Each structure stands twice: as C-alpha cells, then as structure tokens.
C-alpha cells in the first residue's frame, strides 16, 4: 500500500507512514479491506446466499444478517480479573505480549505459547502486540468457560479499529495446517461494518427453516457438547481498551460470599466511575 499523503510505500504492519507520519489506518482493518480479501469474502457470501435460497432460508439469512449488524464484541474474564481491570483509569486489557514485555507475566515457553506466537504472526505480521481478542455476541454473553464475566464493549470505541475473523484464530490455523509458506487464505476476515456478511457466509449452513430471531444468539456463538471447541466469530481490536470502553457487564449471580463482595464493589465502580450497566442472570 502507498501512503495517501506522500505516496511512499508503507509496510502492512505500520499504522503511521514512516516518511510523513500520516495515519494510514489500522493494519488489521487495512488487511481486511484488501481487494483479494473482499473478492474472496464476496464469493463465499454468494455461495451461502445460493445455498440459503435453495433451502428456502433466504429470508431467514437476511434476518440473521440484520441481527448480526447489532452484535457486540464481548470479552470473558473471571470476576477477579474484571475487578483488576476496572479498578483504575489504566488500560483495560493488556495484550499477552505487552504483559510479557512489562514483566507482569513470564513467558512460559509452553507449546501452547509457541503455537499462539505462530498463529498471531500469521494473522498480524509485525503488529500482533497491538491486537486484543473478543468474541461476537448477540445477547451479551461470551463463552462461559473463558470466564464468568462477559464484558460487552461499546460499539463506538471499537468500530473504526476492529475486524472480525472466521473463528478462534489459533484453532483455524491448526485446523488448516497453516504456517511457513502456508499463509492465511483470503475471505475469512472482514471489517467491523461487514461482520454480518462474514457471519452469514460462515453460519448459513446452520440456519434452518422455522428458526426465529431468539435462536440466532446460539448460532453466532455456539457452545458445542463436551469434547468440542466453542465456536464463535473472533473479534480483533487494534490498540488499547480503556475501562470506559465497557458498555455493560453480564454475569451470573455469584453464590460465594467473597464473589458477592467483589461484585458489589465492581458494581459501584462500573456504575459510578465507568457509566456501565450490570446485568445478572
């Protein structure tokens, strides 16, 4: 890509032009906007639409896409992690690499850490430390195994810098055997405003005649039976998240006294300092 200001070439991982410092956009968003990505994604969506028509699900698919346009990015964390994250006006969500760089977390050098490094470098070459992960959700609930608190992020604070991806990117890379000389194929990522098309292309086979709008949440973010991985559309957000990025917290009513105490305090902070709402179920 060339810088729109000085016409010099800029790298895929750079946000600011190294010559004139012009803001050339978020690298993940630029990656999703590449012509080959758009073409491939359009092709997948076209096939999905044909399939839906053939199965008599075209209206349902349109309804699904409308619903996904109002979906939100959701982070799942434990109660105690959320308490730490919102307790000050610092960055809400430090990426793994930044935590390691700051010395807060020591790299374990486990096979899992190594796999993750490879997958992230494939998807975010040269800027993986700037990416924060979330899941797309229609009902504000994330994957419960990942943490009992679902933090719903404000659309306005991520819209410009978020992209969506087919599924858990680490699972995706493992499933397709991606690695050296096997890059991520095009058509599996989209900008935030095009998330409905990507979700429809991916999930069209799950739509069935007779389904209704309340069923969509369980399709967009599915919890498979034991032994299977949770299936969701992954959200990649470039840059830091502040606690005021939180729109609401969704959590199951805690049973233990210690958790009730933490939630009580969390509720006060979220309401009074963050301006977020709390939803218990």
């Amino acid at each position: 890509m060339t810088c729109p200001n000085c016409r010099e070439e800029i790298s895929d991982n750079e946000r600011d032009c190294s010559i004139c410092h012009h803001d050339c956009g978020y690298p993940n968003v630029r990656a999703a906007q590449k012509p080959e990505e758009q073409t491939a994604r359009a092709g997948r969506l076209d096939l999905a639409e044909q399939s839906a028509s053939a199965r008599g699900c075209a209206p349902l698919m349109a309804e699904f896409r409308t619903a996904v346009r109002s979906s939100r990015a959701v982070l799942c964390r434990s109660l105690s992690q959320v308490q730490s994250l919102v307790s000050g006006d610092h960055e809400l969500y430090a990426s793994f690499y930044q935590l390691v760089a700051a010395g807060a977390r020591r790299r374990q050098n486990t096979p899992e850490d190594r796999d993750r490094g490879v997958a992230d470098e494939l998807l975010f070459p040269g800027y993986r430390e700037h990416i924060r992960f979330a899941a797309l959700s229609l009902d504000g609930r994330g994957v419960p195994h990942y943490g009992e608190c679902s933090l719903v992020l404000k659309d306005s604070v991520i819209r410009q810098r978020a992209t969506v991806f087919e599924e858990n990117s680490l699972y995706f890379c493992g499933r397709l055997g991606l690695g050296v000389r096997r890059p991520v194929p095009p058509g599996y990522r989209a900008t935030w405003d095009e998330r409905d098309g990507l979700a429809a292309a991916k999930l069209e086979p799950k739509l069935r005649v007779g389904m209704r709008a309340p069923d969509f949440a369980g399709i967009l973010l599915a919890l498979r039976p034991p032994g299977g991985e949770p299936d969701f559309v992954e959200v990649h957000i470039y840059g830091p998240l502040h606690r005021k990025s939180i729109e609401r917290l969704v959590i199951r009513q805690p049973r233990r006294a210690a958790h009730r105490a933490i939630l009580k305090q969390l509720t006060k902070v979220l309401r009074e300092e963050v301006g977020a709402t709390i939803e218990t179920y």
Partner: protein
Amino acid sequence: MRALVSGEAGVAVLIDGRQVSTLNAGASEEVLLTEADIPYLLADATDVAELLDTTREAAAVALDLACRKDEALHLFLILLDAKADREAQQLSADCLEELFSDQEVLEFVCNRLYSAPLPANSDLVAALIHADNARAGRLTNFLDELGSFQPAVRRWRESWDQLGADLFEQGLAQEEFRAAVITTGAFRRMVHAEPEEVDGVLLDCLANASLRKLPGYRRVLMAWTAPFRAAKARLRREIGVEEDEEQGKQARRTRRRSEKPKPSVIVFETVNKQKEAIKRLLSEGKTETALKYVEDLVRYQGDRSEAQDLARSLCDLAQHAKSMGEHKIQLALAQRAVQTVRTDGWSYIQVGDAYRCLGRLEEALQAYDHAVRDFPQNVVARTGRAEVLKEQGRLEEALQAYDHAVRGFPQDVVARNGRAEVLKELGRLEEALQAYDHAVRDFPQDVVARNGRAEVLKWLVRMEDALAYYEATLRDFPTDAAARNGKVSVLVQLGRYREAQALLPGGTPRTRNDWIAEHIRGMILMKQGDLDAAVHVFERGIRESPWRHSIPYFRGALSVALLRRKEFRKAVEAIANEDAPAPNILRLHAFGELAEIAEARKALARVEGSRLPRVIVLREELAARYVRPEAGRPHHSDDWVFERECDLLLAA
C-alpha cells in the same frame, strides 16, 4: 500430565498429550476443550503457574489455593479502599478472617502489602472498623501491624526504587527481580527485621533458589540492603564497641521496639482518625453517614478503651456538631455519652448545652441542675446553668448564679464574662463595662472578654470608642469573626456602608458568625432603602439559619422592614412571641400604628424598666406618639424612628 494454573483466571488447564480440559474454581466437573482455547482461558492472567508431571487432584488443590490467594488480595484491597462500597467492605472483612486462617494465603497477601506503602486512597481506620465489626481478630492484628510498619515499608521501598538500572543485566530483569523479592517474601522479611537481623535475612535471600537463578542476584541484594546494613553499623558505633554483645542486642531490641507504636497508641490514633472522619462528614453536611461512623466508633472504642474515654469522644463530637449548627445531632451524641457513663458530669453538661442550643430551656436547666448537684466543683455546669437562666429572662437569678460561680472560681473567664453579659442585659452598663475591663485585664488573651467590652461601648452609644476597640482586637485576633462582625455593625451604624460591605464574608453562610454577618448584610440593604432585597435576606435567615439565637435578629429586622413598608399587622406577626426589649419596642410601634392601644400599652409595660439608652429614646418617642399623647413631647420623624430601630437591632 501438565497443568497451567491461574488463581486470577480461576482456572486450571490440564494438558495430557493432545487432550485439553479445564477445571474451573468452584465447579466440580472437568470441561473438555482444545489447545486453541488456552489463550482465551488464561487471557491476561499474570499468575500462571505451570505444574509438570502432575495429577488432576494435585492441580485441583493448586487451583483452590491460587484462587483463595487471589480472592484474599482483592478483598483486602476493597477493604482498604476509602471509596469502596461499605457493604462490600464488610463482606470482605468477614471473608478475609476465614481466608487468613490459612497461613499460605496470609503470607501471600502479606508479601504484597509489605512491598509498597499503602496508596493515598487507602483508609486503614475504616478497614480496622470493618474488621472489628466482623469480630475478625486475625484481620485486625494484620491491619494493626501493617499500619505500624508503614514507615519501614516506605524506607525499604525507597531503597529498592533507588537501585540503578545498571545493576540489572537487561531491561526486563529489574521488573522480574522485583516480582521475585515480593513473591519470595524477601521484602516482608526485611521490613520486619530488627537492624541486627538484616544480615541474617540477607543470607537467607542469598541462599534462596528463586532469587539465585536471577542474573546478578548477589549484587542487587547487597545494593538493596546496603543503607540498612550501614545504619546497623552506625548503631553499633553509637552503642560502643566495649559493650557486651548480648547486652547490646537487648538494648537495640528495646530501642527498636519502643519506636513501634504500642497497641494503645494505635487505638488512640485510630479513634482520632475516626473522629476526624466524623467531623469532616458533619462539616460536609453528610449527617447520615456521620451517624453510621459514630456507631462504628462506639463499637471500636467501646471494646478497646475505658467507657470514660468513649464518653469524652462523644462529647467532643457533640461540640463539633454544635459548631456546625447540628443541634439535634449534638443532643443525640451527648445523650449517648450519658448512657455510656452515667457518672460523668461532663456528659450531663453537654446534654444541657445541647438542650439550650435547641431552645428547650427547661430540659437544659434540669440537665445542668443534675450536673451542679452531682459535680458541684464543675464550673462549666454552674456557668451553663446561669446561661440558661439568662435566656429564660430570669436575669436576677442568672446574675446570682454567675456571682456564685465567680466567687467560687475567680480564675474562670467564662464565669466572669457571663456575669458581665448579664449586667449588660440588665441595663447596668457601667457595671458591665467595669466587669469586662477587669476580665480583659486578667485575661488579655480572651477575645470574648474584649468583644464583650466593645459591645457594651456600643450600647453606651460610644461608637468611635467601640470601633477603635474592635480594631485593636482585630489587630491581636485578625481572624476572629465575632470581632469582625462587631466592627462591621459599628461601621453600618456610622453610615460607612462601603467599608462595612468590604469586610463581610462571601459564600454560603454556615457558622453562627456567618449568619450574623448575613443579618448585617440585610441591615445594610435596608438602611440603603432596598427593602425588597433586605426582606429576602431576613426571610431566608428565619427559614434557613440553624442557629436558634440568630432567628430573633432576623425576625426583628424583618419587622422593621415591614414597619417601613407600613405593613403593620405583618410587622407584629414577624416578631412572633419574642420577648426582649427590641421586639417589644417594635410591637409598641406596630400596635400604635394599628391604633390597638391596649396592646401597645402591654408592650410599653415590658420595656418600662429598661435602662438601655437605645431602648429608652425609642420607648419615649413611641409612647408619646401612641400611648401618652397628653405628655406633649415633640415627635421625631418616621425616618428618625426607622434609623433608631435599625441601630437598636445592630447593637443587640
């Protein structure tokens, strides 16, 4: 099997070949997942521990401990947070007592809390109160100790922060090293160490496997502890090399321990902080919260000190409530003090004072009578009783009571001033002036005596003398609001309005003197002819001033404004049932204008015996106008009467 355990994330990830499952805190079942889920499961956790060759059971035990440590740290931080939800704090205290029964959990929290001074937003006192409410002995001890070691924590932390980056081999090493000295307990042990114990702790640290694997560990630890080892060497030199080593150790231990606060000192400091917090809340008008804090104080101090001390604390708070005009709270606190110790004369005096401030004079008199009977040697009880009699209009009895008090306690300036004040009220102005002269001579630093003397000069209509005296008082007591108000009122009477206005305070009136200043502000408006604005000020004073004694001034001033507007019926209503010389003069004026001569005569009768010059001139003028026209005395103009009525109110 390997396991990745995080208390922060509340999860243990079990990895057995290609199979991945998780254990979640508080859930019994294992959930099968994939390797791709691991980054999400551990997310941004900073406490991930890897267990090699482990079992599911061992991982579950490790997870349980890690979660309890993490919870304890969070709950402790909530407990300390000055802005935290009180209910959350109380719940936290309850939970922490149980969590701290596990030594490992206690040490985990301890290691972290002793690595840096408590942040500015922490409230150790409130935390102690919550711990006390929860009957949490372990937690209370921990908090007590944490508070007493703060100076040492600060010194050790400063020493760490001053270590140069060149001591560490790479950028990240410094942070990694800091984490290690915290988690291994090195920080905590150093903070706890006596000077002669630092070397021993240092040796332990040098032998610690976790620290030894860090690059340059010896160099870093030596540099960190250097200031403290040097201090020890200095201490040895001070004590003398010939001193027997054992004796020296003992002496240093004693000296060191004597530096640490004793438990009674901690209780004293805690109670003082509680009282400060309550006073602050009362000053901010947060009475409901203040009363909750009072309950906390009663529980905390009640359990730890003599009942007499608690009663004193409550009386002290009652006095503060009084200064804020919160007389109902003043009474409640004083009554609580009496309930705490029924044999405490001071508490009864406080109850009497509170009743007096509320205008419940009979109850005030009973409380003072009780105090005088049981504590005849208490001069405050006697002067309080005399003051109530004065307010009841029983001036001769009040004078007797003051005479008695002055004879018994000639060195009590309050009794002397009180006696002089009653003489003034009786119109015996020369005697009052003499009494104040003596008080000022004997107590030159008593500003009340000096202001009292200036007041008498005002009543004697010696305005220039009064002004000079106020100015002299303000030179010695430049912040005295009563002297300032006195000077302002003289300036108004002299027609020097601009100078007077410049001296009046701004902002919302709160203290008694603020409201007196507000009254003067209204008087200036009235004298300048802006009756509407003046009426607004006076009506607001009647409505909003919490100071019972200031209300008659606002009522009198409102009545004068209404007389000026020729709204005579309203002028009578404004005075209500006040019964002092000034309101009776205004009543005489209003009823005279309304041609209700019988009522005017009644008002006149009430001021017939007054010896106050300002009252006498108005009484004679108004009596001649409305009640005794046959006397044929020349009448003054309405403007003249208005000015004299204003001056009468300003002199009062």
